[in-house]
């Protein structure tokens, strides 16, 4: 049963994750993360109004979650070093965020309650005192610096956003492929998508389908292709 969580005011993916974990009274570990993967993905899919950059954050986390989930479904699955690092990184970040969220709650209890006032302002005794570093050129330079700093800040976020597929797109794509071809290898399927994150998403979307009984997957060798074929079910269940 999916756990309902408020979806109105989430700042980021960790908040969603922690709420889901806490709602199930679990501790932050692999098991808990595997457990909440579906609800998390549902949550991401339900959001239509994320800014592009935040969506990228949410989906990147989804990919790592699906990785953990896949391991729980296929214990033999070997993570690459990079995948392992992603999983460990996510766990550390979640643990740190858990503390930060607690800290923020503590601060919200005290912030602004008993403001310690600054000394009252006195009319300053004005003495005209220019300085050696003051010149028209220095002013022009200072303003140029301020303007340049602003531009740098404004350009940063855009540069970090790379176009990513949505989970929904990946799943739809996968479902269609499975329907059209009775047998399809995962390598073949993932060939079309170069971005590693897309491969993970497609692979794990596939695992979801496996779990839902839509297709049966057999992995013949540990690092070999995963063969996908239709099961007895007549249609592919739509995820979500």
């Amino acid at each position, binding site marked *: 049963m999916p756990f309902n969580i408020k979806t109105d005011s989430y700042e980021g993916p960790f908040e969603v994750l922690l709420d889901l974990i806490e709602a199930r009274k679990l501790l932050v570990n692999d098991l808990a993360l595997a457990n909440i993967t579906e609800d998390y993905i549902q949550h991401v899919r339900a959001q239509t109004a994320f800014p592009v950059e935040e969506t990228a954050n949410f989906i990147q986390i989804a990919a790592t979650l699906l990785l953990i989930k896949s391991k729980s479904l296929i214990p033999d699955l070997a993570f690459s070093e990079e995948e392992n690092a992603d999983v460990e990184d996510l766990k550390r970040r979640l643990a740190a965020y858990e503390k930060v969220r607690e800290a923020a709650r503590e601060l919200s209890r005290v912030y602004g309650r008993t403001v310690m*006032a*600054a*000394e*009252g*302002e*006195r009319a*300053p*005794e*004005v*003495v*005209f*005192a*220019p*300085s*050696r*570093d*003051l*010149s*028209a*050129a*220095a*002013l*022009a330079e*200072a*303003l*140029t*610096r*301020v*303007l340049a*700093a*602003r531009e740098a*800040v404004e350009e940063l976020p855009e540069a970090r956003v790379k176009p990513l597929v949505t989970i929904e797109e990946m799943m739809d794509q996968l479902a269609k492929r499975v329907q059209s071809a009775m047998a399809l290898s995962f390598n073949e399927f993932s060939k079309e998508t170069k971005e590693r994150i897309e491969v993970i998403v497609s692979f794990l979307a596939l695992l979801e389908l496996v779990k839902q009984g839509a297709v049966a997957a057999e992995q013949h060798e540990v690092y070999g292709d995963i063969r996908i074929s239709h099961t007895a079910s007549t249609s592919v269940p739509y995820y979500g």
Partner: protein
Amino acid sequence: MLTPPAAAHALLFASGGPLPKKQLAKLLEIKESEVKLVLKALTDSLKNSGVVVVETDTEVELRTASEASVIVKKLRESELARDLGKASLETLAVIAYGTGTTRGEVDWVRGVNSSTSLRTLLIRGLIEGKEDPADKRRIRYSLTTEALAHLGITHIRELPRAEELSGAAKAIIEAESAAAAAAEVAE
């Protein structure tokens, strides 16, 4: 809970200037006749502390002790003699290239709080604040004539790349006030 002398201390500290004793009594919720005792206790507790209570018949104020005059003078001199530094130069630049810039606008353009820099520039007589005729709570800052003279110009138009830089700063202020207004509506 604060004792009455401690509460009086906090009030005098926060008021930043002479406070009428009547007002002090009212704020402390004591009788005017009791103010004397409270101020006596405060005076005693501040003995040799570097700060003293200065009283007239009707008003009371905190001041630095006369023994501290030499060191306080050193502080003032160091405040005036120092280079302006990056923060104050930036603040002065935003004001110089703008026309009647407010504190909030300086903060927006710089992306940081500029109160300390503004204070430094005011004390050093490089900028002056005037009430906005349209909104009396708002202070608009501009360069003093002494500052212009020091820069060797008679008008801010003569600053290097005046048009270009003023335009860029103005564009930021406009974008920010639009964003701030939108945020307020959204709330």
